């Protein structure tokens, strides 16, 4: 055991650690004062107040060193409180105070200022220097929707600059000038608003004073209550620390000890919370009478619903009722919703938003491995040598994971991006395969062709752990490369190089998003990604695997809980008689064994007059499901539409009954992130107005329909779930602790970071060959509609935007824009910022042009966050052949300059 001494007492040292981390381990969080040090930043060594004296023998000659960047060595004798270092610290702080305003009492961070703390701890009583030059006259920057700066308070510790670089990777902040005149700049010495700032707030959290802050004054100590919870905005599952006073939320910061996000989060998690008490929040239940919504009591609403449900059940049978659960809700609520539909209504007509995003992932990975979830953890980025990102734009949609991938790529780890668009990550990629939308299968087959041709496959792994390789091999070696190159539009040598990079990396891991799943061949593509991992042996250890980037915060959890028509809680097959019996015994009632409707089938059934009632929780199907006008017709044709929502969404407008649900800040439960991590969500405030926790609403209806279900508590619900969902066996509310557990969790509480280490869930991994097939959308319509539109989302907005559009995010991103290549724009006579009329076989919309080489000629791209645009008027009925996930990514359209220069809403354009 190697030892070093702290103030003459011996302690064990770790290899390579700094003196500061050594001291912290034994002396607590603040063994010596620090200013430039921060938990999530590299040692920097600028403030020097962490200095200690070090001797090589007890009582020997000492040297003064900065503890933050000096590695501890065996037999170091470290002295933390000698007269000399105490004097040094005090003298440094005295210098700092010669150029710092002494207005602590009125300062935003009074009581929570690191400079104030350090000054107090070193005992400054006066500043002895004669009056000299200062920078106290610097002006505040209040230009931005969230970020603020007051650089007269800046102590030049560079923490903001380093956070912007090392944590977010945005490089908005730097220093200008040198020496005494060096100062923080944004961009080329511009304001926050005019800079390339992505508002992640890492700089504000990093700043030890109030030099950089935000409009919520998140470092002030006005708020006394701090609640730890999990973000609602994506599948990364960032932990948040929410500050509140008297039931009002003040601000949010990211806890440094969060395993998922280590002190970082994005502008949605950190700043976009003010929707929760927005004046437009639905505060009372409402029933539509004579075309207008009228406020009612909960009892009235429940009576209305229960009467209708009972009546429809009696006359049309339970299969005339369907439910769409919400991936924004907790596991417990999703479990309850599927239980309600199955055990109380008596149908398997339950589905969720996974249908329109990652249903092909769940299905494809179940087919290949036996488990439809990420095989590894985001943490594995530290252990991988090659990252392949396909059909995903994580810097916008999963910003913390995106930032972590970008950090690795910038530092030289191999990055392969397969995406039609030049995404942020594509700029940093070693290999960017900018394929034509809809040709993932062609490109992945080309990659696997070259891997086998180059003999880079892992025969040992294939023989021991997989089946189906021989048939696959024959097909893939006969691949028509000329044809695949032509359809995908990617040079074969580029594909070959990427294939070699992936296959020859010691550890390669893939991340995929909706650019993989939302295609007619979505499930097949997921299986191909699994094939790629298996033929190269990249599965079952650190730094490898297949890792879907789950979209909504709890889309993993909603599927885990049984929100799909063919599998109940825990992915158990509803058609299997043994399983049916198990469910029946557990729920204490009969449950159906026929597979129910998937979401698109619900709409078809509604149009055919077979579906009479639908209960939709937290999902704006009108704005976000494809072919808007069809969805509207389907809802209009359903007798009872119940919408449980936070806001009057486009879908809610078509409801018969509106139930005001609660936001993530108002309820407790658990969310499961994209790496199977079940984390505790803790209510920060009470539900606004008369709104209710969604789980309780479901329970209220269950009870009124004669099923006895105890009131909603997260621990009680988890206990029930752990008894039916096999991989939740060891999960309990108390065991989850601060950082949650990754399923499967064994009875003794052991969780699982990496799946399939020894065997696959299904036994042998299944390898299949899938030939490329052109989407019907293009086969049928391409001649008349020669452009391909692909939809996606941006950093500032979340899905239908109901929440983010009710925050200052809307000041940063004000509208949906249509990306168009400069060549296409020129050919059509369209200038940047002009309105384009986009027409598909389903409808047309006007969107403002954003002329960019981010898309190739012939390809267009836009987001779907704004109901004013309603992009899904354009999207089609084509679905993934296996999982029925809509093909949002390939829409045949034609464009022309809009006739009107003034914007008109989509509805007004519909023929």
């Amino acid at each position, binding site marked *: 055991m190697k030892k070093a001494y702290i103030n003459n007492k011996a302690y064990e040292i770790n290899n390579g650690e700094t003196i500061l981390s050594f001291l912290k381990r034994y002396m607590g969080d603040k063994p010596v004062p620090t*200013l430039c040090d921060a938990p999530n930043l*590299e*040692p*920097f*060594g*600028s*403030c*020097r*107040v962490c*200095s200690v004296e070090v001797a090589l023998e007890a009582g020997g000659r000492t040297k*003064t060193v*900065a503890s933050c*960047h000096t*590695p501890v060595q065996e037999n170091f004798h470290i002295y933390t409180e000698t007269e*000399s270092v105490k*004097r*040094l610290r005090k*003298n*440094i702080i005295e*210098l*700092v105070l*010669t*150029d710092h305003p002494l207005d602590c009492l009125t300062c935003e961070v009074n009581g929570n200022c690191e400079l104030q703390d350090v000054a107090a701890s070193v005992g400054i009583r006066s500043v*002895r*220097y*004669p009056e000299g*030059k200062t920078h106290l006259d610097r002006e505040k920057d209040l230009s931005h929707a969230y970020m603020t700066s007051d650089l007269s308070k800046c*102590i*030049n510790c*560079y923490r903001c600059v*380093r956070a*912007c*670089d*090392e944590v977010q*990777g*945005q*490089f*908005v*902040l*730097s*220093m*200008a*000038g*040198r*020496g*005494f*005149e*060096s100062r923080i*700049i*944004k*961009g*080329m*010495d511009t304001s926050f608003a005019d800079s*390339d700032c992505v508002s992640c707030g890492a700089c504000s959290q990093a700043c030890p004073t109030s030099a950089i802050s935000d409009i919520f004054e998140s470092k002030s100590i006005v708020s006394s209550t701090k609640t730890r919870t999990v973000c609602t905005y994506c599948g990364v599952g960032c932990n948040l620390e929410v500050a509140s006073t008297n039931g009002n939320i003040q601000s949010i910061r990211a806890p440094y000890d969060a395993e998922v996000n280590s002190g970082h989060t994005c502008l949605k998690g950190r700043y976009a919370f003010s929707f929760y008490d927005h004046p437009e929040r639905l505060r009372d239940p409402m029933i539509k009478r004579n075309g207008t919504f009228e406020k009612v009591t909960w009892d009235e609403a429940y009576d209305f619903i229960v009467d209708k449900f009972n009546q429809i059940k009696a006359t049309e049978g339970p299969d005339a009722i369907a439910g769409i659960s919400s991936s924004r809700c907790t596991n417990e609520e999703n479990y309850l919703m599927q239980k309600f539909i199955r055990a109380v209504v008596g149908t398997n007509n339950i589905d969720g938003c996974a249908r329109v995003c990652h249903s092909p992932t769940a299905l494809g990975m179940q087919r290949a491995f036996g488990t439809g979830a990420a095989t590894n953890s985001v943490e594995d980025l530290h252990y991988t040598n090659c990252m392949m990102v396909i059909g995903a734009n994580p810097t916008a949609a999963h910003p913390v994971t995106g930032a972590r991938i970008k*950090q690795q790529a*910038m*530092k*030289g780890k191999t990055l392969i991006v397969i995406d039609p668009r030049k995404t942020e990550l594509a*700029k*940093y990629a070693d290999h960017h395969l900018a394929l034509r939308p809809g040709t993932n299968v062609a490109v992945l087959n080309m990659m696997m062709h070259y891997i086998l041709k180059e003999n880079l496959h892992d025969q040992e792994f294939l023989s021991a752990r997989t089946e189906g390789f021989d048939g696959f091999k024959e097909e893939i070696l006969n691949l028509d490369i000329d044809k695949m190159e032509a359809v995908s539009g990617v040079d074969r040598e580029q594909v070959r190089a990427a294939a070699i990079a992936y296959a020859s990396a010691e550890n390669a891991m893939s991340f995929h998003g909706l650019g993989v799943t939302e295609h007619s061949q979505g499930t097949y593509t997921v299986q191909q990604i699994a094939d790629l991992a298996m033929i190269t042996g990249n599965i079952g250890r650190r730094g490898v695997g297949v890792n879907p980037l789950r979209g909504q915060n709890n889309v993993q959890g909603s599927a885990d809980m049984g929100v799909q028509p063919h599998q109940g809680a825990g992915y158990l097959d509803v058609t299997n008689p043994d399983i049916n019996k198990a469910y029946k015994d557990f729920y204490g009632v009969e449950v159906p064994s026929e597979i129910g409707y998937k979401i698109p089938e619900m709409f078809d059934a509604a149009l055919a007059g077979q579906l009479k009632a639908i209960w939709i929780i937290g999902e704006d199907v009108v704005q976000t499901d494809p072919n808007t006008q069809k969805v509207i017709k389907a809802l209009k044709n359903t007798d009872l539409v119940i919408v449980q929502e936070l806001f009057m969404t486009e879908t809610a407008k078509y409801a018969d009954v509106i139930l005001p649900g609660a936001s993530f800040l108002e309820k407790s439960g658990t969310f499961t992130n994209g790496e199977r991590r079940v984390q505790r969500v803790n209510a920060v405030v009470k539900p606004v107005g008369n709104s209710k926790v969604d789980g309780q609403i479901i329970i209220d209806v269950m009870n009124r329909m004669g099923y006895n279900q105890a009131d909603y508590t997260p621990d009680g619900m988890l206990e029930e779930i752990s008894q039916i969902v096999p991989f939740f066996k060891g999960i309990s509310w108390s065991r989850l602790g601060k950082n949650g557990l990754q399923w499967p969790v064994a009875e003794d509480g052991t969780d699982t970071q990496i799946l399939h280490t020894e065997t696959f869930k299904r036994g042998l991994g299944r390898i299949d060959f899938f030939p490329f097939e052109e989407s019907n959308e293009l086969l049928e319509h391409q001649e008349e509609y020669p452009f391909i539109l692909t939809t996606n989302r941006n950093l500032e907005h979340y899905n239908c935007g109901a929440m983010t559009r009710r925050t200052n995010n809307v000041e940063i991103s004000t509208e949906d824009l249509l990306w168009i290549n400069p060549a296409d724009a020129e050919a059509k006579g369209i200038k940047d910022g002009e309105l384009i009329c986009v027409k598909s076989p389903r409808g047309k919309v006007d969107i403002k042009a954003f002329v960019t080489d981010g898309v190739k000629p012939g390809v267009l791209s836009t987001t779907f966050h704004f109901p004013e645009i309603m992009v899904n008027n354009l999207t089609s009925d084509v679905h993934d052949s296996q999982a029925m996930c809509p093909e949002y990514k390939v829409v045949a359209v034609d464009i022309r300059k809009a006739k009107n220069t003034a914007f008109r809403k989509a509805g007004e354009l519909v023929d």
Partner: protein
Amino acid sequence: MSKNISSLSGRQGLENNLFERISERPDKETLAALAEEFLVGKANTFGAVTFYDFLKPENQGKEVYVCNGTACLCAGTQEKLQQDLEKHVSADKIGHMTCLGRCHENAAFQYNGKNYSNLNEEELSSLFEQKSLPGTDDYIIQHRGTPVLTGEYDKNELFDLIRNFLNQNSADVLDEIISSGVRGRGGAGFPMGIKLEGCRNAAGKQKFIVCNADEGDPGAYSDRYLLEKQPLLVLIGMMAAGYVCGAEWGVLYIRGEYPESVSACESAIKELTDAGLLGQNINGSGFNYAFKVVTAQGAYICGEETALLSSLEGQRPEVRVRPPYPVQEGLFRMPTVVNNVETLAAVPYILLNGGEAYKKIGTERSSGTKLLSLDSFFNRPGIYEVDMGTSLNTVVTELGGGFKSKVKALHIGGPLGGLVPLSKINDLSVDFESFSQNGFLLGHASVICVPFDFPMAKYIEHLFEFTADESCGKCFPCRLGSVRGQEMFEKAQEGSYKIDRQLLDDLLETLEQGSLCALGGGVPLPIKNALQYFEEELKGYFE
């Protein structure tokens, strides 16, 4: 220092070098485009250019740069020079450079990419008429002892030397350098062999040899001598270092104040190329080597090796923490050897004569020879090479020929070196140990005379001011302390303020113990020397 920017800059490498690109056209539009091209922030390219004297917006468009180095200041020539220049150029077109290395005759300035010193009025007029004059850069070059660096070397003999060592096992070449005991001549005195061994053993896709030719110490021009008169010695030293470490690139980072050094090195590189001694598979050895000459843009701190590396990467040249040491993670985060010009220039002698032969020169712990540069207060200003251990008195009286006018102290080893009163000259010999034992620092061994009538308070203020001007601004003690020190002495000289001695001692201790690098950490030495040896002169300024 940003690891990300190091790596991103490294993607483009030396061939498309971010620092050179921002130096070429430091306008905002170009800087924005470069940020895009190199995938860094606009704040980074803009922030970097604002660091450098020659690039920062307020200094763009100057025609003439007047030297404001210590030697010219002490010589008192610059006020008149400024007046004379203003007859030809408007005052707003006149900027400053800190030490052009013309300390042997002073009245130095740069015009049209060339340095001039001590021109009379007639010569000045014809310079501005003709835009250029033939160089008049004469100084004495002499040695006492072994001429390791100032000897006359036959070019063909040197070319053969390259062919010879490329035929040897690189481990044997390293052994010769280790056995020579040669220590770094930039000031720190770190053994070169150990540095090379560290780099040789480090893993890296690429490795680099960087010659620190940013001789920024006012008063020093011995590196300038080597770069301009003996460039092959430097280049061959770099090649041998590359061969030992497995580095294929040699980078010369030469200060912009030395335009003639840049062109001399470029010519020497061409000679090597023409002789087939550069490029791929040199002389059939399998060894590849290329040189890159980079012109610095005016920042003293770039003489600090980690700041230099950040500069080369196009980052702001702020001092990095160590570890990682450059041999582990240097330029573009690859193993890198940074050596001073004079250290590298000793290598050909070592390889021609053997490490043992070099080891025999000088003292036990300071082997070899040392160059000293003497300023214009000496009767015989110039560059002198002496064996380590030679008495300082020999240099001052015998070689330098004594002083032209009365002098009260010698500032040896640059602004961070010791201030040696005349009374101590006889106690010192030219080697690392003698100087440090006596409370001074050999440093790079430039010698500047402080004239007898030059007020010591003004000299101290000058040292603080120099530090404040050149501080990178990263560490708190140097950024703030240098300014506060300068202000104290400025106010004290104005008479409005008496210095609190305890406060000054606290400040010096804070700089010395707390600073991140040798700039803030080093400036207290000459100031403490001044306080000790000129106490009587200074006491009126204190409380």
